[in-house]
């Protein structure tokens, strides 16, 4: 459906994006993930024909975005990072204007707009002036605008930025719903978001695609299975360490005081690679009457994969690199695990069922 070949954009001396290649199949939901200034917006602006690339091509449904601009653009709905709305229009007026410029037939329009307003839940706002809407609602009008005309491809630049948590969840539902009828590309800094809604994640950093895979497989590639666990145990440190010595199968990798008083955080791994250490840890602690308060795999979360791949280990999202337990210097060895973010982490690890497909990263060098 979408083909991007050797896309490069140079601003002055600065390469905003550098030889990007990828394809997106029909019906796929793809997430661009990258830190600020990675080139997500630039890529999307080029794909939608808003700006031109320095070199490379984009084709949408086989139509070149420059050579066949009108036809190609007719297949795209774009929601830029700032909703392109006119403050002095009412929501209905605005959506009608968008339908006009997209050439939606009069006969289809009424139903289409009603359906879309329902989908993004702005029915109650129809008569409101857009400038009086809250940020979240303006964002939804921006999304509704992209959906007008039911384009085959919908491209969204940070659709959930500035929304409250409830609206974020709602927005995710809307986006997921789009996947059945449209090919969707969205961008985000937020990993949960991308892993919650996307079939495939493309991690972009400094203008290059550094990884492209399903959210699960991305973490599977770098994870250690059940061989390495983070454990929080209630009890004295010396007692715990002594207990561990009785079990040579478990290797104590690192120890740290946990935020809960009277408990210890440990990173434990199996002596051999193919051991499932969970049972052994349980037996060890149970025998010594040391309650296990928490045990979780140190499988890399998307957060860590992201930081690993973008080579930005210690300056990641808030809270990173301070409370973490770091072992080893090789990027893949990183096991940063801020104890206070467990709830969030659990959310990530319950990923959506993903269709069976494997799309290799298209030649990022």
């Amino acid at each position, binding site marked *: 459906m979408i083909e991007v070949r050797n896309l490069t954009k140079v601003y002055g001396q600065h390469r905003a994006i550098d030889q990007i290649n990828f394809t997106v199949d029909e019906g796929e939901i793809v997430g661009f993930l990258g830190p600020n200034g990675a080139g997500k917006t630039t890529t999307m602006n080029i794909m*939608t024909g*808003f700006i031109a690339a320095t070199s490379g091509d984009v084709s949408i449904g086989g139509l070149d975005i420059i050579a066949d601009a009108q036809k190609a653009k007719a297949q795209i709905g774009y929601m830029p990072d700032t909703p392109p709305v006119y403050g002095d229009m009412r929501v209905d007026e605005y959506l009608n204007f968008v339908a006009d*410029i997209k050439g939606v037939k009069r006969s289809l329009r009424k139903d289409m707009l009603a359906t879309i307003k329902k989908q993004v839940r702005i029915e109650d706002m129809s008569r409101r002036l857009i400038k009086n809407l809250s940020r979240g609602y303006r964002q939804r009008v921006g999304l509704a605008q992209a959906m007008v005309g039911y384009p085959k491809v919908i491209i969204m630049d940070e659709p959930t930025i500035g929304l409250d948590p409830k609206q974020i969840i709602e927005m995710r539902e809307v986006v997921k719903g789009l996947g059945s009828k449209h090919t969707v590309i969205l961008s985000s800094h937020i990993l949960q978001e991308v892993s919650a809604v996307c079939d495939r994640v493309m991690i972009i950093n400094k203008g290059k695609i550094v990884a492209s895979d399903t959210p699960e497989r991305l973490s599977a590639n770098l994870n250690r299975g059940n061989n390495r666990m983070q454990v929080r145990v209630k009890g004295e440190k010396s007692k715990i360490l002594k207990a561990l010595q009785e079990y040579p199968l478990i290797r104590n990798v690192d120890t740290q005081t946990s935020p809960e008083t009277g408990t210890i955080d440990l990173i434990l791994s199996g002596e051999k690679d193919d051991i499932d250490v969970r049972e052994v840890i349980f037996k060890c602690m149970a025998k010594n009457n040391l309650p296990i308060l928490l045990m979780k795999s140190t499988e890399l979360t998307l957060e860590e994969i992201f930081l690993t791949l973008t080579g930005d280990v210690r300056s990641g999202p808030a809270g990173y690199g301070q409370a973490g337990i770091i072992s080893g210097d090789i990027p893949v060895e990183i096991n940063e695990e801020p104890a206070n973010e467990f709830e969030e982490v659990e959310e990530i690890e319950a990923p959506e069922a993903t269709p069976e497909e494997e799309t290799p990263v298209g030649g990022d060098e």
Partner: protein
Amino acid sequence: MIPIYKKEMRTYFTQMMGYLFLAFILILIGLFFSLMNLRVRDANFQDVLGSTTLFFLFLVPILTMRLFAEEARHKTDQLLYTSPLSVTQIVLGKFFAAFTLFMVAAVITMLFPFMLSFYAESMPVSRIVGTYVGWIFVGVSCIAVGVFISVLTDNQIVAAAGTFAALFVMFLMDAFAISMPTSAFASIMFVALVVVAIAGIWFNSTRNILSSVIVALIGVAVVVGLYLINNQIYDGIIVRVLNWFSVYARFNRFAVGVLNISDIVYYVSFIVLFLYLSINVIEKRRWR
């Protein structure tokens, strides 16, 4: 084009600019009408029109300052330029909206001579009609300039001030032109500068030295070729080029009541040139 046109017409009347423009232009013309026609019992309405062209300097920016600057400021240009509309359709839609408002004003002012015709013994009809045609051409030319300047910035105030300045320079162009040197040397320097500028623009957009040099050489060849065909072709060229931008200079010819094809062609090409430049600037900015 139609959706953009409708949107702009709507905006003129939701954001006051339309009313402001109509109010200003009608008050001004009404004022001059009462001073120059009613009070002195004179039926020469064309004099009123002639006196009011100067006010286009600040009337036209009211119409055009918002057109593109505001879209860029609010990022709504992303919607327009990623829609299936072409840049030409967008520029024309906006231009015709401004044009329509201007024509509405023009038609309303026609009431003044119409009223006059009931009381005057004789009306200089052909002169008034001729002057109207010229007045409208001057106004629409100013609008085309205003559209072009609005494309260049994302700030309405800058667009308004820029349009005012550009129209002001155009207004004084006659005076400028007269003071320009007409010597052969100056003319040749001027032509050379134009060739260099074209090659420079070419280089700026292609970043290719070889093709830029070729463009420069072709330019020189054309210049020399034209000179060989007609060795007077560059005489006083600076004055002639500047005069071309002197929209107001030709206005006086209409006042005599003569509709000259060449003048009409001139105004139409002036308008088309500035719309074409606007379209090109937008395309250029996005295509690089």
